[in-house]
């Protein structure tokens, strides 16, 4: 297989895993004050994501780093064209990290409340922005030989915004299920009930997304050309329905896994449609950024492949172990007042 294709697949996997992992801590963050009725419950919610959010976010840094190493031209143009959007993403991620680390260090209620609000907003914005960014990538950016012909506001077109809302809802359901799985008692029940309610909105937006994609993007061309790929969107739809069915049966953990699968399959659905483009041009396909015209040299791709093959499985292994160490459920009645978080 060509190394560009290997890296296209890896690129897709890194983003998909990133959305699956950071997605639930974004969701839990957004829902902090909606699910957490008092300080104990809020602390519990933050403790469910406390040990893992940092490791989750590194998938983003690695996805960015892999884009840089494997497809430097795409990295360069994507990051400079989406300057303002990425800046907002960056500011949100900075504030988000700080809000979780610092909220437990102050003594007043005001201190905690302000950091809680910061956490909610800074969990919402990246979810929306990442969705808007990927919606626009699916559509293509207005770019040609002379550069980029858009601005931050051209990103906020209907399809881009719809994808943004789609991501937000996906992560909300995902995060609510996570809280439900990781906690006990009333909080857990309320979280799964909330996931069930948001799911209806998610379903509506998901259908709209699939339909709108046919008009706004060229993603379906690859599927029509090779229908076997329809397996991925089909799995996305099935797992999306699975969330509700499993949720109704009271199987929160299975519903959470189903929502993991949904996020993976939604990402793959989009990325398969892009192939072999990384970012299409909405003006003229001549200027599409493809895995061939924007990739590193084969020599670099080979070295990076060796690095990925050796280290990514190691990373996955210790991250799974890490999740297992923290597998037990938390109860608001026993979350202690001590500590950094």
């Amino acid at each position, binding site marked *: 297989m060509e190394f560009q294709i290997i890296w296209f697949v890896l690129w897709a996997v890194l983003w998909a895993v990133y959305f699956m992992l950071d997605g639930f801590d974004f969701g839990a963050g957004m829902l902090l004050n909606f699910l957490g009725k008092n300080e104990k419950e809020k602390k519990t919610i933050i403790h469910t994501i406390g040990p*893992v959010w940092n490791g989750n976010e590194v998938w983003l840094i*690695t996805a960015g780093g892999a884009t840089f190493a494997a497809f*430097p031209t795409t990295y360069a143009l994507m990051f400079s064209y989406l*300057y*303002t959007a990425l800046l907002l993403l960056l500011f949100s991620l900075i504030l988000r990290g700080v809000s979780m680390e610092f909220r437990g260090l102050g003594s007043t209620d005001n201190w905690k409340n302000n950091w809680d609000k910061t956490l909610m907003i800074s969990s919402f914005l990246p979810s929306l922005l990442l969705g808007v960014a990927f919606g626009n990538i699916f559509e293509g950016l207005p770019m040609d030989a002379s550069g980029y012909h858009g601005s931050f506001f051209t990103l906020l077109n209907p399809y881009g915004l719809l994808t943004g809302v789609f991501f937000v809802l996906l992560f909300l359901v995902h995060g609510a299920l996570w809280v439900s799985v990781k906690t006990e008692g009333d909080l857990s029940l309320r979280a799964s009930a909330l996931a069930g309610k948001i799911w209806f909105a998610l379903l509506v937006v998901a259908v709209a997304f699939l339909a709108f994609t046919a008009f706004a993007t060229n993603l379906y061309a690859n599927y029509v050309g090779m229908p076997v790929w329809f397996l991925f969107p089909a799995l996305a739809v099935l797992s999306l329905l699975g969330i509700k069915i499993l949720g109704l049966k009271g199987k929160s953990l299975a519903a959470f896994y189903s929502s993991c699968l949904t996020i993976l399959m939604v990402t793959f659905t989009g990325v398969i449609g892009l192939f072999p483009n990384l970012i299409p041009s909405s003006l003229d396909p001549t200027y599409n950024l493809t895995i061939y015209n924007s990739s590193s040299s084969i020599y670099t791709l080979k070295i990076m492949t060796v690095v990925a093959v050796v280290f990514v499985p190691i990373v996955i292994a210790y991250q799974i172990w890490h999740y297992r160490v923290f597998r037990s459920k938390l109860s608001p009645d026993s979350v*202690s007042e001590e500590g950094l978080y």
Partner: protein
Amino acid sequence: MDTLALSRLQFAVTAMFHFIFVPLTLGLSILVAYMESRYVSSGDEVYLKMTKFWGKLFLINFALGIVTGITMEFQFGMNWAEYSRYVGDIFGAPLAIEATVAFFLESTFIGLWIFGWKKISKKAHALSIWMVAIATNLSALWILLANGWMQKPVGYVLRNNRAEMVDFGAMLTNSYGWLKFFHTLFSGYVIAAFFVMGIASYHLLKGNNPEFFKKSFKIAATFGLLSSLLVFFVGDFHAVEVAKTQPTKFAAMESVWETQKGLPYNLMVVPDVQNERNSVEAVGIPGMLSYLAFHDSNAEIKGLKSFTSDLRPPVLPTFLSFRGMAALGMLFMLLTLIAFILSLTNKLEYSRIFLRIMLYAIPLPYIAAQLGWIVAEVGRQPWIVYGVLKTSDAVSKSVTPLQVWGSLAGFTLLYGTLALVDIYLLTKFAKKGPDEDPSLLISRSKAQEV
């Protein structure tokens, strides 16, 4: 200002801010890991208390180091798209490797360390902070190999309108990168040592917890003495590497205008940039500058005048920063030597003037590290990749000055606020001192034991 000037300013601001937190992380992670290991091997509660107290300060600092690091990765693409496109084939690799082999390790095990007190065995818990320490130091290696390549590009050819990697091994073994790595690493250790000694001095002056802080001080003094000797020693070799590979930077560091052999080291130099000479050169040590440059007192040093003025770096900031850094480096050896002797002979508490000096010395190694980066980065100008790509050709074409004004204002506001919050928290918890009963702290994660 245009996009180039603004982007340079923004990179300087964000990199320097990031590098307030990183070096302390490099050193303090090792000190905390050492303290926890002592606790595990001896069972002595004082080491647990130390782990908790210094560990908390470590975490407050660590949080900002992590979040400001993402800015650096994003900025290469956002503001320096031409750079990223031109050298991404080489420069992207160490960044991606850094994320894969170091960041994952660091951020996974920090979570384990913070929340895992009662989840894993004592040994595994101590091991997890060692993993964090190793990962942060490993991350520094990869980023400095990347920076080393910008200073001394190796293992590439110019082809397909860009620089392409042809020898990954050459990049891995780039002497410039390794010297820079060790120099940076040890400077971080010095920062951590002064941080611990300074805070310990504060409490010793107040008479709080003398046993606890004397012990902490002694560990930091030993670590600091070794590190300040090493940072100076590596720095000497680093200077030779600079003289060999970046003659314009070396000439600017020492303000040498004329190419000459057997140059003396003048303790007093006042550069006169306009007239391309030094208006004062006095108190010279014969042959010393040539010796420092090439470890040969007869060696020839190329002066700035042998390069056209458009290829020279800004002389004054490079020269002053280098002198300042070197002077501070010598001061650190002296201070850590005194600190080591006083804590060895158990006279620390009675040396109140020295304790006061050490308290106010906390910022000095930070300043030295920032000056060092000014030498490294300003001294490399006008090149972004020495001899290969100019900074002016590296900036993003699609980014407007207005966008960078906006982002620069945003960063200034955000970072300024975060700095205030961080200083407030560090001061608060540093002044508070260790918790009396460390077992209280452990119980916080009892909630997680079902």
